């Protein structure tokens, strides 16, 4: 089921109560089964199902060797396990295995593109367009490359109610008139657009198809940070037609230490290596080295094999449940979360209204209470939420907030998690005599 079909069918109040109330998925997660906590911070990192832990343990117990090196059978088994994981990832987002580069996380993937593609392709006054709701991981690497190349960063602003990107302004960024205006600092074209798919703060789902079409019509590439959408919505890179897409394994039930860069093969072919050393070479002499074929050219050193196996197991776990069930469960709880929070006096909910589809997270601010105080008091009732600038300081500046609170939803959450949060917030107000 593709996302657009999902949008038509599932963004409603229709989920069966049985799913919301039962802990049918919760029992798959050993940490949650053992600890009596209300975990509402899956957008930061998800908990891990037993199948993922088991597969990683099995790899170490049965197949551990250095892949791509040994001639012996065990090393071949490790190579197969690693490359099989790549195929699972490729299939998951409808890419070719040669287009999947394993990195340590999404941040590294963006650094790879910014440094490898950016330094080769960006020149003085070329423009990099980033959305105003970017996570630091999709801002700072571009700033560094802009410092070196002289490229200029421009932002796609938020709309007036801070719920989505201002698409008219996005289109305007490409207008050639801007470059011919007198004294315009914009003399060159937009070379690349960077955008988050689902905002980790606002929960906004950005219109990637439309943004990609506009970027491509104007000769720019597009990089999508899919950290908050992978594992929640089906992704098809061919349908989206994006040039680069990045995500982290640990936010989608996989282990930490592995992330994915998807890039169209034509781009990877033309990009110089990022990190260099062992495993990414074809030949090495004192005079020069030649590079391994794709995607190995971008994977220097012994790769995170067990982590790749864990990520593949996570994808298989997701597939076994199916996006339709995942989405329906998460969407219903997210709607409930949104409604409950908005009903509390003195709580301001950020992001789109209930009428618009949103990611499985809701950020909020409690009037006159610092988010860190909110999170500390909630912690006393075992409610785990994110508080702070959420790695999006520029966005918080635009929202005129120093920080905010965020509760995020995954398949293992149940109504009780939200009830506990709401009760905890009542306690926050009591403590602060509000």
């Amino acid at each position, binding site marked *: 089921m593709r996302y657009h079909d999902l949008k038509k069918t599932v963004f409603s109040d229709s989920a069966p109560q049985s799913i919301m109330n039962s802990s049918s998925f919760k029992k798959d997660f050993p940490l949650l089964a053992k600890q009596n906590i209300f975990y509402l911070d899956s957008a930061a990192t998800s908990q891990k199902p037993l199948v993922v832990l088991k597969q990683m343990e099995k790899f170490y117990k049965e197949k551990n060797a250095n892949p791509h090196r040994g001639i012996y059978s065990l090393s071949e088994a490790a190579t197969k396990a690693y490359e099989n994981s790549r195929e699972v990832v490729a299939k998951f987002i409808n890419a070719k295995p040669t287009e999947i580069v394993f990195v340590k996380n999404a941040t590294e993937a963006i650094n790879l593109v910014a440094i490898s593609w950016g330094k080769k392709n960006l020149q003085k006054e070329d423009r990099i367009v980033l959305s105003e709701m970017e996570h630091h991981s999709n801002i700072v690497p571009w700033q560094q490359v802009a410092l070196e190349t002289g490229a200029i960063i421009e932002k796609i602003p938020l709309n007036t109610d801070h719920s989505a990107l201002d698409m008219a302004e996005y289109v305007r960024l490409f207008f050639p008139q801007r470059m011919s205006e007198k004294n315009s600092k914009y003399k060159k074209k937009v070379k690349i657009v960077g955008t988050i798919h689902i905002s980790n703060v606002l929960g906004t789902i950005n219109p990637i198809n439309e943004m990609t079409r506009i970027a491509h019509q104007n000769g720019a590439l597009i990089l999508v940070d899919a950290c908050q959408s992978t594992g929640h919505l089906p992704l098809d890179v061919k349908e989206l037609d994006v040039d680069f897409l990045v995500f982290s394994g640990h936010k989608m039930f996989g282990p930490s230490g592995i992330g994915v860069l998807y890039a169209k093969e034509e781009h990877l072919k033309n990009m110089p290596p990022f990190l260099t050393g062992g495993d990414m070479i074809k030949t090495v002499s004192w005079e020069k080295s030649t590079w391994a074929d794709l995607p190995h050219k971008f994977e220097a050193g012994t790769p995170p094999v067990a982590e790749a196996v864990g990520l593949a197991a996570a994808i298989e776990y997701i597939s076994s449940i199916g996006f339709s069930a995942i989405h329906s469960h998460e969407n219903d709880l997210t709607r409930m979360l949104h409604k409950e929070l908005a009903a509390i006096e003195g709580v301001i909910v950020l992001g789109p209204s209930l009428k618009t589809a949103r990611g499985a997270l809701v950020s909020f601010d409690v009037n006159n*209470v*610092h988010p860190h105080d909110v999170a500390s008091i909630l912690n006393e009732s075992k409610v785990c939420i994110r508080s702070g600038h959420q790695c999006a300081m520029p966005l918080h500046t635009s929202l005129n907030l*120093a920080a905010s609170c965020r509760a995020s939803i995954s398949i293992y959450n149940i109504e009780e998690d939200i009830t506990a949060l709401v009760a905890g917030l009542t306690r926050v107000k009591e403590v602060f005599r509000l």
Partner: protein
Amino acid sequence: MTMYAEVILEYAQNPSNKKALIQAEIISHDTNPLCGDAVTIYAQLQNNVVSKCTFEGVGCAISLAAASMLCEHVEGRTVAELTKLTKEQLLELLGIEVSYARLKCALLSLKTLKVGAYNFLATTNPQPRDADSTDAQRENENSSTTQRTFASTPSEALQ
């Protein structure tokens, strides 16, 4: 145990010493960008003794309560004594168990005050640097240099 004891809330919500003292000899400002906390500490001196100490700032309850309690605590102390205040003393003053994640909130005002005190000492008592200085003076100078380096890197000021 809760960090939000009645006394902490009282200090955070109704701090009697939250105001600017623009004529103060020590005015020190610092921020905790990760939290959005910001504090300015004002210490008015008489013969190098703090006669009045106030603060201004925004932040969480823990950081505001710590700032207010610290200002109260240091009145009557010498500037040299301010530089010797420790993290343990501040936590004792707060009287609550501060979780690891919230330590930086609790310690912001202490760090700010100590940096202010060090800077005050550095500008009012420059160390002799002539060639005839005795070994004792030189040693003194060395330790003072250490102290000043200490003060100019706020993250180390509390170690």
